[in-house]
């Protein structure tokens, strides 16, 4: 589903990813971990084409996205559900409207949008808060709205950037069980986190990134 081949990326001359290669199989729930600044968010941004690599190739579902046309980028992103680290919720829209946005962008009709949004909110336990605005929700609830928005359109790939950052362990466990449920339905999920408790003893694939060196960025794959 995701394949990085010798990918390099730098910011203002500072190499962040150097000759990085790894791949995530279809239907997997995998973790991407490493210290802050190692390049976890950069990897996710490269996947949904918010950034382009300087060298190497990135394949999403078999397609090399390095040569994707600008007009095709929205279609690539529609195949991906993204849980942003900074949530990116629209504060002037209700919970319902925020989740519905992902479906409206995909051109679904209003009746289907309503049914799907309510079903997804029920899944993340926020159906009763559909008319609330994000600022009236707790951090954990906002996180679940972002997850609902990412999964509502049933994308083939879900990327989550620090989905449990700043959450208490109980809420984090609830969010992880949501991801497992979504993964059980067939979606491929890649979670970037430095929270060891999320992947420790989970039995899932973990990609551990060590910062770029002259020898290249080291990705160590392990089964936890």
């Amino acid at each position: 589903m995701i394949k990085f081949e010798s990918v390099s990326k730098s910011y203002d001359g500072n190499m962040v990813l150097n000759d990085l290669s790894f791949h995530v199989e279809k239907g997997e729930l995998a973790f991407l971990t490493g210290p802050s600044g190692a390049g976890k968010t950069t990897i996710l941004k490269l996947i949904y084409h918010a950034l382009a690599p300087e060298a190497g190739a990135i394949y999403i579902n078999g397609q090399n996205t390095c040569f994707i046309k600008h007009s095709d980028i929205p279609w690539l992103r529609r195949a991906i559900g993204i849980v942003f680290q900074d949530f990116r919720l629209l504060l002037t829209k209700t919970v319902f409207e925020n989740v519905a946005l992902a479906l409206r962008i995909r051109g679904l009709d209003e009746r289907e949008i309503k049914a799907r949004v309510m079903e997804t909110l029920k899944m993340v336990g926020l159906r009763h808060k559909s008319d609330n605005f994000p600022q009236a929700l707790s951090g954990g609830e906002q996180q679940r709205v972002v997850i609902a928005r990412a999964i509502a359109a049933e994308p083939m790939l879900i990327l989550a950037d620090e989905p449990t950052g700043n959450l208490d362990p109980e809420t984090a466990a609830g969010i992880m069980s949501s991801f497992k449920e979504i993964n059980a339905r067939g979606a491929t999920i890649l979670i970037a986190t430095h929270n060891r408790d999320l992947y420790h003893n989970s039995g899932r694939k973990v990609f551990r990134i060590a910062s770029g060196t002259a020898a290249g960025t080291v990705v160590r794959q392990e089964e936890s």
Partner: protein
Amino acid sequence: MSYHVKTALSDLWKEKWINLLGCLSMGVGLFMAALALAAVINSNRVASALPERFSLTVFLKQDATPADIAQIQNALRSDKPVKSVAFISSDKALANLKEGLGNKYSYLLEGLDSNPLQASFDVKLRKEYVRTVSVKALAASLKTMSGVDSVNYGKGFLDTIQKVVHAVSEAGLALFAGLLAGAVFICYSTIKILFYRKSDEIETLKLLGATGWFVRAPFLLEGAVMGFLGGLAAGAACFGAFDVFLSGVGGALPLLTNLSIPPALVAGLPVAGVLAGMAGALIAIGRVRP
């Protein structure tokens, strides 16, 4: 109601003060543009009404035969630009002169042994043909006819009218285009501000897979609504301004009572507003890169 319409109306309401300012500014721009266009239309109307009194005089030679006169008359009557033809014999011309001089100056003609005045044709032209070029061409062709001595027409008057109308038309159209561009610029500035204010939201939409048109649509609708409302305000202002102008000045200068704002022009203002608004919005947003 579609998502885009709902978003556009909601955004218009949320930023109501800046949008109101934009509407009013566009209204002022469109109002002034409409006045410029009305000046062009009215100057043409006044100019075309004046030459209805315009005539062309064909003086005949003293030795012109009845056959020559008949030929000239037939030629004039079959000519498109000619509205009417009146033959004035030399006797009639003298009689007219005497009548014009009246008793007070009748002594001026007492010493005449013979009638020195020439017979002529007084030719009235259709207003659509009263243009320097067409009148000059007609005069030139008449001069070549047998029996014609000379052809007189108000060349200076005609040239002046044409120049004035031409100048008013050019200046008015340039002003109209400039003010319309100003209306587009006002919408451009307003939408640009709104676009910057929503830049985070737009970024999120793009990351969620929105196409450029999905992002642009609400802004285009906002521009269209702003332009439409500005156009309506400009139309109302046009009617009001003309009423005030004509009631104040029309009485003093009767010629000005012919002035009016064409209803089609007023009806076109909201349409022009919508187009200007959408153009401004489109330029403001530009190309939305994913």
